[in-house]
């Protein structure tokens, strides 16, 4: 059974808009970082946009997700505000985390976005626990855990999937297999070709999807979320994709063969979808251009707004260590 999700043209344009928003958000962030405006690490999501947008398309209020060090795409796909994201990257008071988290820890709890994570595999148990709480409360919600191919070699992956299958937790494990963990190609970090093969180790359903085809991702997400909401348990989804750039800003990615890069650049998820939109789905070029303009405008305004935001006051460094710090607990 494959779930069929039929989208209107407007919905399709919206999918395109979201992917473009992610793409341009990241490209702009990269430029801002090069100018010295963003400190710390930045792991661009460029190339993988169809995965975030496709999966999040099937989420509702009350659902939750965890992300990785490469988290901006998931966060934007979940509807977070680029203004406050840039403000966070700028380490400002009005950023999502009030300047305390940055890229690696950005969170939007109101939208159930339970955070980027600086620990590879660190978010997998968290999402699983969120799913447990949904099951306990019979909320009908689902949790999603995004992670990379490299993360599937961490113990947290194994322990979490085993439990989720055992308890039939409402969760999607979404592995974005972009062929590399940091500078290490998949065949140098695991002997399997398809991460989805690991599902069988937990008697879990595993599926492979073209992670550069947003509607294909939507189809598997629709089925997996339906199964999860119906109490039929978790799915491991392997989305085959590629990161266009280095592991982080500053990594020139010289360790990748040029043919491989070329192959994948031709399969750019935005180009592919734009071609379908204007071809198969009959979108007109103006509509696409309007989206481009709007995205550009939104991001320019967002970055500008962010740049005007106040820095946190130094006294905030010891705030929020505890919710209830009693007397003296949070002192030096």
């Amino acid at each position: 059974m494959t779930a069929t999700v039929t989208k209107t043209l407007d919905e399709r344009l919206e999918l395109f808009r979201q992917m473009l928003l992610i793409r341009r958000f990241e490209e702009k962030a990269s430029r801002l970082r090069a100018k010295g405006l963003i400190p710390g690490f930045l792991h661009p999501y460029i190339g993988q946009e169809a995965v975030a947008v496709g999966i999040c398309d099937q989420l509702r209020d009350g659902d939750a997700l965890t992300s990785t060090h490469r988290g901006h795409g998931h966060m934007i796909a979940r509807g977070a505000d680029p203004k406050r994201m840039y403000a966070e990257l700028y380490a400002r008071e009005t950023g999502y985390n009030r300047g305390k988290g940055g890229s690696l820890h950005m969170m939007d709890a109101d939208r159930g976005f339970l955070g980027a994570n600086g620990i590879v595999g660190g978010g997998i148990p968290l999402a699983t626990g969120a799913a447990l709480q949904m099951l306990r409360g019979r909320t009908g919600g689902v949790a999603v855990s995004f992670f990379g191919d490299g993360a599937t070699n961490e113990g947290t992956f194994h322990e979490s999937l085993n439990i989720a299958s055992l308890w039939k937790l409402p969760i999607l494990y979404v592995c974005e297999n972009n062929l590399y963990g940091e500078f290490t190609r998949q065949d140098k970090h695991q002997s399997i070709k398809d991460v989805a093969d690991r599902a069988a180790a937990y008697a879990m359903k595993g599926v492979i999807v073209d992670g550069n085809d947003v509607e294909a991702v939507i189809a598997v997400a629709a089925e997996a979320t339906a199964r999860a909401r119906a109490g039929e348990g978790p799915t491991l989804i392997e989305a085959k994709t590629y990161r266009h750039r280095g592991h982080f800003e500053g990594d020139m990615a010289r360790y990748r063969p040029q043919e491989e890069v070329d192959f994948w650049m031709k399969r750019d998820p935005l180009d592919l979808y734009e071609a379908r939109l204007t071809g198969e789905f009959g979108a007109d070029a103006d509509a696409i251009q309007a989206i481009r303009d709007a995205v550009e405008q939104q991001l320019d305004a967002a970055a500008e707004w962010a740049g005007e935001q106040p820095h946190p006051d130094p006294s905030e460094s010891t705030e929020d260590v505890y919710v209830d710090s009693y007397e003296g607990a949070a002192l030096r």
Partner: protein
Amino acid sequence: MTTFTYADAIRQAISEEMDANSDVFMIGEDIGESGGVFGVSKTLWEKHGHHQMWDTPISETAVVGLAVGAAMMGARPVAEIMFSDFSMLAMDQIVNQAAKLHYMTGGQLSVPLVIRMVTGTGGSTAAQHSQSLEGMFTGVPGLKVLAPSTPEDAKGLLRAAIQDPDPVIFFEHKLLYGGRGGPAGDVVPVDPIRFGVGRIHREGTDVTIVSYLRTLHHALAAAEELAEEGISAEVWDPRTLVPFDRAGLAASIKKTGRLVIAHEAPVRGGFGAEIAAWAASECFGDLTAPVLRIGAQNAPIPYAPILENTVLPTQASIANDVRAFMKRAR
């Protein structure tokens, strides 16, 4: 008439908090029907049913990680680590996730989580089932660390821990579960106890002995011994290591002028270092003698009973050490 044990206290605290709030649940290994290795969760499975009792595979990282994730969604999980030694398998989720989430998300959400750990040495369970690791957690900003020494404190502190909005590490000493007794009765009502308030178990004027968990009971017995020799020891239990009752300790030091700290962890890097260092800074003027730290020898815990006894502080060794200390100090 039944005696209220430390194990009863813990079971009752969990049960009462589960009754009061369906967001409270337990998660851990073999905590289900079997009642747990130490019998702490006995009856909870039947009384609180599946949705408040989650008996897991052997997967410590996931046990804690799931609890953290559920807490992020508003649950109040009580995770059990069968022996605190096994917490080493879950350190990332404790130190890098639970402790930091509230802070690094700018206060967007909190992690109201209790991690119960069976701690301490006893019964020749050897190096990997006997450690006193509280010092590792007290140094992590964002965690609270409790170490109750009596059934009443165990119940009151655990209730407070479950109600607390922050992640709490809750140490239970394996040799305190059974025998020590407490007030008579099957169920003893105890109110939640505010963190950061120490307790004077025995008043004294010559020396302050700070101690907790099982060692506190050795210290109390040693103090009785010393009393007969004319040494008046005040025995003070911080009960909560983080937050720590600094005012309470300062007051006791002001009175006695002398500080001894006794715990089961090795001296080097034990929580006693923090207490001593703090006192050497903030109570320096009141101290009339060097601070004395008593703890385990700097070794893993050996299996042989004769070695186990040698490694650990005992009533006799505490009495001896304090006696010699007082001789030097006078």
